[in-house]
């Protein structure tokens, strides 16, 4: 496990450095082959990690609601005690794997391979540097998901900005500079607020005598045993969640997203929508939900659920109004991430499972949509719905893939979107039916704008822009290689979600156990089997029973 995990982290990093070092000597065709080899090897390594993960014991009875099933630590920086009475503090390179991170890691490595494949012909200028950025992004994303130390988490969370800044800014569309600067400064500023919150939390823990105050499992265990006062919890939660709210992005903080998506090259959009946005929800899941249960229940639930519902409806309405397909997909992301947040803030096992699954589902389906939109753009150099009609006759396979992914995205039963949205909304229904009902309207709106787009662009009489002598061909083998695995996974999760749900179940249950459930009967018809109740956590004083 240790070997595969380190290999998984180092493969993209080493490949990126090789590309950077040899960028003068490499032409486009060699650079992309090296990048493909590196990312494919990382995918294999992540699958090996997943394979070995099956045999790891689930550490039941842990005192912490966050517990990696495998861990690897090395001291990073130790502050020796300043005086005899003061505590020593240290940060670690603390890597670990739990079910949630495992799924997201495999999603990242899979989408990176797809990103390399989709950029195969379209990135000609400075190709080695482009692939270097993509692989650095992959390495840092995998790193965030494995990080169980607060400082390491934050460092990698911040680092993801740099490669994506270059990907958008150098290889993007006409407004790329503005989009890249806005994306960077907006998210950087917000994550500084997160840093304030994290520093306050870590120092409070250090002064309370926690042995390793930056370790997320230790922090969570300490906060479970000694809950902070509600006011302090609320302040810390709001500070820490600021960076995540912008990253997701929740409703009033979403303005950077459509711009960044429209200007980014296809590979950038795929990774941005597919994985990067999940850093926000993952941050909630890793830091806010396990650490500040009182705050999440009293302030977080009404606040974030309201913002999520507004995001769902507002994002869907914006998507309806778009004529640019890519922008439409970008706004649909805002809506889908809203479902994700509704699921997470249902604060019960169904909702959390649904939220996590929705993270994966959105990663797959939106990445698929961006890939297909990119393929259309490569062929016609336009993404305007007014210029493209009836493409199904010209591009039957591409249209077929588009219909499939669209169905997955709008949540057709039997495909992955349905499972995630259903669990999220079902979880929220138990917690607060109003949010669930309002959120459910997003499903209808989602079907409306996605099917409307599908009908305009792919069906009806053929009308395509003039495209010179260039022959427009259907999906080629390379493109199929990028999109087919995504379709297969969409179907797999839709038909048989149990393996995925089982992977995340212990982690989700551990978090859900922190929260009092509104009624016992409702949780009896859980789809996933109930966990061992942790009496000491459930019955702890200070937990709020609404």
């Amino acid at each position, binding site marked *: 496990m240790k070997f595969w995990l380190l290999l998984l982290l180092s493969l993209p990093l080493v490949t990126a450095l090789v590309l*950077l070092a040899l960028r003068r000597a490499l032409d486009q065709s060699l650079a992309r082959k090296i990048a493909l080899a590196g990312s494919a090897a990382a995918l294999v390594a992540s699958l090996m990690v997943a394979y070995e993960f099956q045999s790891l014991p689930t550490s039941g009875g842990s005192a912490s609601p966050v517990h990696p099933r495998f861990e690897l630590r090395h001291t990073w920086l130790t502050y020796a005690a300043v005086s005899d009475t003061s505590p020593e503090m240290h940060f670690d390179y603390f890597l670990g794997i739990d079910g949630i991170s495992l799924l997201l890691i495999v999603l990242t490595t899979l989408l990176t391979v797809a990103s390399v494949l989709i950029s195969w012909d379209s990135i000609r200028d400075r190709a080695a540097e482009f692939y270097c950025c993509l692989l650095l992004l992959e390495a840092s994303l995998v790193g965030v998901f494995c990080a169980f130390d607060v400082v390491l988490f934050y*460092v*990698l969370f911040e680092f993801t900005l740099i490669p994506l800044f270059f990907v958008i800014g150098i290889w993007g569309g006409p407004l*790329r500079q503005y989009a890249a600067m806005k994306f*960077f*400064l907006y998210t950087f500023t917000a994550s*500084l607020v997160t840093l304030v919150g994290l520093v306050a939390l870590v120092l409070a823990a250090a002064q309370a005598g926690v042995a390793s105050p930056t370790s997320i499992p230790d922090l969570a265990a300490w906060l479970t045993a000694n809950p902070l006062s509600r006011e302090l919890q609320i302040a810390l939660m709001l500070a820490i969640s600021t960076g995540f709210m912008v990253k997701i992005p929740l409703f009033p903080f979403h303005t950077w997203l459509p711009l960044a998506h429209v200007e980014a090259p296809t590979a950038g959009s795929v990774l941005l929508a597919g994985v990067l946005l999940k850093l926000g929800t993952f941050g909630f899941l890793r830091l806010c939900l396990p650490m500040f249960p009182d705050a999440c229940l009293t302030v977080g639930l009404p606040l974030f659920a309201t913002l999520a519902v507004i995001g769902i409806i507002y994002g869907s309405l914006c998507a309806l109004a778009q004529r640019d397909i890519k922008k439409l997909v970008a706004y649909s992301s805002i809506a889908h991430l809203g479902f994700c947040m509704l699921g997470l803030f249902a604060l019960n096992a169904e909702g959390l499972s649904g939220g996590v699954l929705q993270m994966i589902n959105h990663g797959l389906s939106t990445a698929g949509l961006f890939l297909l939109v990119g393929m259309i753009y490569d062929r016609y150099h336009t993404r305007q719905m007014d210029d493209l009609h009836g493409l199904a006759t010209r591009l039957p396979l591409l249209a077929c893939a588009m219909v499939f992914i669209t169905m997955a995205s709008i949540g057709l039963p039997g495909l992955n979107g349905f499972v995630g949205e259903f669990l999220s909304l079902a979880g929220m229904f138990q917690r607060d039916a109003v949010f669930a009902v309002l959120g459910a309207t997003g499903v209808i709106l989602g079907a409306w704008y996605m099917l409307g787009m599908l009908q305009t662009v792919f069906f009806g009489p053929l009308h395509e822009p003039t495209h010179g002598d260039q022959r427009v061909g259907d999906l080629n083998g390379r493109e199929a290689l990028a999109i087919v695995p995504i379709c297969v996974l969409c179907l797999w999760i839709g038909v048989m979600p149990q393996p995925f749900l089982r992977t995340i179940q212990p982690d989700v249950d551990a978090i859900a156990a922190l929260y009092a459930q509104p009624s016992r009967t409702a949780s009896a018809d859980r789809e996933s089997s109930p966990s061992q109740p942790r009496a000491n956590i459930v019955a702890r004083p200070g937990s709020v029973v609404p």
Partner: protein
Amino acid sequence: MNAAIEQINQAIAIVAPEAILVATACLMFLVGSFLVTDSGQARSGLRHQFGVLALIALAGAAVVWLTLDAKPVDQGPFRSDQLLWIARTMSLGAGALVSLILWNQIDDAHAAEAQACLLAIVAGASLVAAANDLVTIFLALELVSIPTYVLLFLPRRNTAEREATVKYFLLSIFSSGLVLYGMAWLYGAAGTTNLTGISDTLTQSPGAATSGALLLAQGLLIAGLCFRMTAFPFHFYAPDVFQAVIPANAAMLSFVPKLVATVALLRLVPLTSGSTDLFQWAPTDSIRALLALIAVLSMFVGNLMAWRQKNLYRLLAYSGVANAGYLLVGFAVGPAPVVGSIHAAIFYLAVYGIMTIGAIALLSSATFDGGPLRQDSDLRGLSRTSPGAALLLAVCLLSLTGLPPTVGFFGKLNLFLAAWSVGDSLGRSLAICLALNAAIAAWYYLRLVALMYLEPMPESTAAVRTDWPSWTAGAVCAIATVCFFVAPQWLWMWLE
């Protein structure tokens, strides 16, 4: 008799490295003047020999220092302690880097004097930390200042440069006067010039720390030293001087005076509180308030003014003002319980030195359209004309922003942890100001990175030249920022 001889031996052992530097500087002054013809011409390539000689002298000083016994001494004219160890490492390191930047920026005829002045400045910076007497500290401060005036004036390229030198000279003299006046009050209060003696006397008289005379002394010392630190409101000379002088001098001015001022501040201002451990210095409330005010104003003024700059060196000068503010946060918050605030400040100083010298070295190593880079628009397309320099410069700029994976992140994080862990409202407000300023500063550093990478290459037929010694200095700095991020323990252990 034996005791006196032993004390002299001890003192010589402490300052032997500086003696080597000063002796080499004298030798260079002497020999240099014979190698120049009456018309001011010199054999081409002479600068390489003096550059090598300067590096050898710096290496020799380091070797002598590390081989001599380094036991702590706090009696006599010189002292040897943790602060000397830290200051000497930084000044020798900065000296080597600036010497490399200076290498090709000075003509052959003036290379001997320029490198000799640099060695004298390095020696002075270490001596400030070694001095155990008000008089020696003042002499050491002047050993930094006077060669600086000469060094700034040596290239004599244009009137702007001369004007800048005169401006620096006049204001520097004024600040030296302030420091001297502060020292006089200190002497008046304690009746001795020996630092250990002053500390003993003042500790024994209760209420000394809050007496008006000592507050005045501290205020004057802080004002005089803040000039060197380019902290608000003593920063007005910095942009003009940085803009006009050669890049090597800008690199020197961006770091060495800050180092000197930090060391002198730590030696002189805590004397009144009678603290035995400098790293546990607890300033009185009025001094805390003064330092905090200067810190906050420096951060905001520096960063907001840097937004508007078109000239790269003016921008870096204002960024230096802001960084002086960050540095002063470490002094203003007082002793912190988890992460030592003075440790954090010195860590930041070292990190800032690496980043800013690196950035200036790389700026001066590249060319735009055949000429030096001066304006921000000159950076356009640098990632294509000089990809190596652009990448390394981007690393330094990201480090100045405080982004991972560079040690600039840890520099700010340490200060932030220290300020927050103090736990009072002053510490927390300073921490929040720091975070806010990191966000403000990100904009103008990022703009430079964007210019290098995101803008198309301008039409130019001029050949691209690279100043390799300067490039080397920059590369060392950029690589160091990444290495110290991966293993910050090396840098932190050196402080403890």
